[in-house]
């Protein structure tokens, strides 16, 4: 049980480039925090600094209010699951899990160790594999052994570095829910690194989005999705990703590639004086107005669909367009930051599966201008972010988290009473 505090953490490797730059983060006791970002953005570096495998160049790292910058990994009492598991191949599964306990000389008797190992293996369904060597296990089983080694020792916090990236898609889904359940049940502070935004959205109480070593936004998944602070966060969170359309500002109108949108009030104030802005529109906010009733005040337009993908429960349509010269460079940079392939600019529409639009057809689309995010093309800042709403979402998420922890705790107590 621990809180972890990062104050102005900086990491510079030999070449002087800051892999992690001035990160401030306050992780509460029992919280599940995700570090997410494209590969190479410094997530692993940050995690390894917390666990003590990497020196901190400057800044302060506190665990439970105590500065631990100079402590060796073994003195920090944190447990870590490595990306490729790092199991000890010469030891059996049993001895792998018992390894951290055996190192705590004199603290546990053999009977105690046995009991703890069996408890962990029971929880992770490893009972029938205890006497096998890691080399003979499947990927998912190895993954569970690595988790067993982490949970057996009652560490102050769990750290995960992309623990699911070596598993196939189906197993990844199963292990994801397994990790979430385990974290709630044990109520242990957890920091989880991933480059996969789906994992970030489904697992985290709070998600920290990193870009080139700099923290962009720390918020609940819902706040990140609905109220991103900038272009990068908006583009990174969500699948399929948000569409970014260049828009010319013309008085009280935004001229998008397919349609003109009237703006008023606060937003009109903010875009005044700008030549162009970038409009972000999530694929599900675009509707096929022939099968769905578009919300009030919607703007309607026609566009030729280039490709459709029907997945049963949903359907995507791809509509190519020419990016405006003035913001093309910004959009290309953003694409590169997001590990994109620099492909052609196209708009993705998440259509209702009933929609009968086919390739080459002209679709009748509509969207509510209130669903638009408008970004400053130079700073990338989100001009439409509503701070009050964001604060409200944050408060709700925190309430939900506390309720989930309490529920898990109550169930645990009930179980204990039942078995007693």
């Amino acid at each position, binding site marked *: 049980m621990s809180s972890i505090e990062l104050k102005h953490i900086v990491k510079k490797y030999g070449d002087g480039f800051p892999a992690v730059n001035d990160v401030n983060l306050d992780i509460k006791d029992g919280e599940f925090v995700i570090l997410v970002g494209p590969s190479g953005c410094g997530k692993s570096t940050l995690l390894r600094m917390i*666990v*003590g*495998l990497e020196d901190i160049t400057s800044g302060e790292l506190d665990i439970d209010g105590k500065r631990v910058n100079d402590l*060796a*990994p*073994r003195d920090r009492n*944190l*447990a*870590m699951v*490595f990306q*490729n*598991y*790092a*199991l*000890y*191949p*010469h030891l059996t599964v049993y001895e792998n899990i018992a*390894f*951290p306990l055996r*190192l*705590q000389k004199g603290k546990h008797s053999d009977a105690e160790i046995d009991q703890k190992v069996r408890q962990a293996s029971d929880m992770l369904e490893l009972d029938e594999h205890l006497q096998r*060597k*890691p*080399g*003979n*296990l*499947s*990927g998912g089983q*190895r993954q569970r052994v690595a988790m067993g*080694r982490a949970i057996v*020792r009652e560490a102050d916090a769990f750290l995960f570095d992309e623990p699911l990236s*070596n598993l196939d898609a189906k197993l990844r889904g199963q292990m994801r829910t397994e990790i979430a359940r385990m974290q709630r049940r044990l109520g242990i502070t957890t920091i989880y690194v991933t480059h996969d935004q789906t994992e970030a959205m489904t697992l985290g109480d709070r998600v920290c989005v990193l870009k080139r070593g700099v923290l962009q936004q720390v918020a609940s998944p819902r706040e990140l999705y609905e109220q991103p602070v900038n272009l990068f966060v908006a583009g990174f969170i969500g699948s399929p990703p948000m569409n970014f359309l260049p828009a010319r500002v013309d008085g009280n109108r935004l001229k998008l590639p397919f349609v003109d949108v009237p703006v008023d009030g606060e937003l009109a104030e903010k875009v005044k004086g700008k030549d162009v802005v970038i409009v972000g529109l999530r694929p599900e906010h675009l509707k096929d107005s022939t099968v769905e009733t578009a919300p009030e005040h919607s703007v309607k337009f026609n566009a030729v669909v280039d490709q459709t993908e029907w997945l049963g429960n949903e359907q995507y349509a791809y509509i190519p367009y020419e990016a405006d010269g003035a913001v093309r460079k910004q959009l290309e940079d953003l694409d590169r930051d997001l590990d994109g392939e620099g492909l052609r600019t196209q708009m993705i529409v998440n259509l209702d599966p009933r929609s009968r639009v086919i390739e080459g057809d002209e679709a009748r689309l509509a969207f509510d201008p209130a669903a638009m995010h408008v970004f400053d093309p130079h700073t990338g800042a989100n001009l439409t972010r509503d701070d009050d709403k964001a604060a409200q979402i944050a408060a709700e998420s925190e309430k939900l988290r506390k309720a989930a922890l309490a529920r898990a705790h109550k169930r645990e107590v009930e179980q204990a009473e039942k078995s007693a």
Partner: protein
Amino acid sequence: METTMSTKAKNGLGVVSIVIMIWTLIPLLWIIATSLKSTAALADPSQNLFGNFWPKHISWDNYKLIFSGGASDLFLPALWHSIVVCVVSTFISVVLATFCAYAISRLNFPGKKLILTTSLAVSFFPVIAMVTPLFNLWRQIGLFDTIPGLIIPYLALTLPLSIWILSAFFQQIPWEMEQAAQVDGATSWQAFIKVIAPLAAPGVFTTAIIAFFTAWNDFVFSSNLTAQSAQTVPAALNFFTGASQFVQPTGAICAAAVVVTIPVVILVLVFQKRIVAGLTSGAVKG
């Protein structure tokens, strides 16, 4: 990888390997056969089978000669020297090479490349060129004909090779093994002893065996840097004499050769399994 091989290719490989096996086995069998011949049989082909190859009557005279007869004064001390010199130099070489290779594979320090290339270069030195200067030096500083006087050149011979082999082995062991151990609560020393050393065991055994053979089979140093009190078997064989001045000591030499080959065979048989690499499989993702 393609594992199925055509029958033709298999048969071809089989024939080739049988030829190679016979090629290498015949001299060994010949030595064994010769060591079992009596003095008379050595000179008289009619007492032997298969065209002078195998004696009709097996005689243990040559073995008696080297263990308890006239040659035992020469052979037994030499055998003892061989064992001491080889075991000690193998032990020192493996311990030093393990630490050195570990440092080379784990730490980044200036001159790391230099150490590796130097050690490779040193192992290519022609030993015969080192003998004369060493002989003069050893005479002057009193190392001539002593056990340390042999161990030191053997270390010079085996250390570079051992360092080279072991650093390749350590480099194969993922860094994360050790970091995981440290996070699990191990000190650097515990991580090394409990995780890295067991994983490097096949490498250590391979190195030990190579170091042992290098010293065990050496003739050049032993015959030039020793006289009596530190002479090893390969050099001592040179000084064997027959039962009388007019008898060639062929039989006795062969018997001694057989005796010194036995430890080599035993070592290989015992450690064969351990030398097989691949113990690290399963450490990381599969």
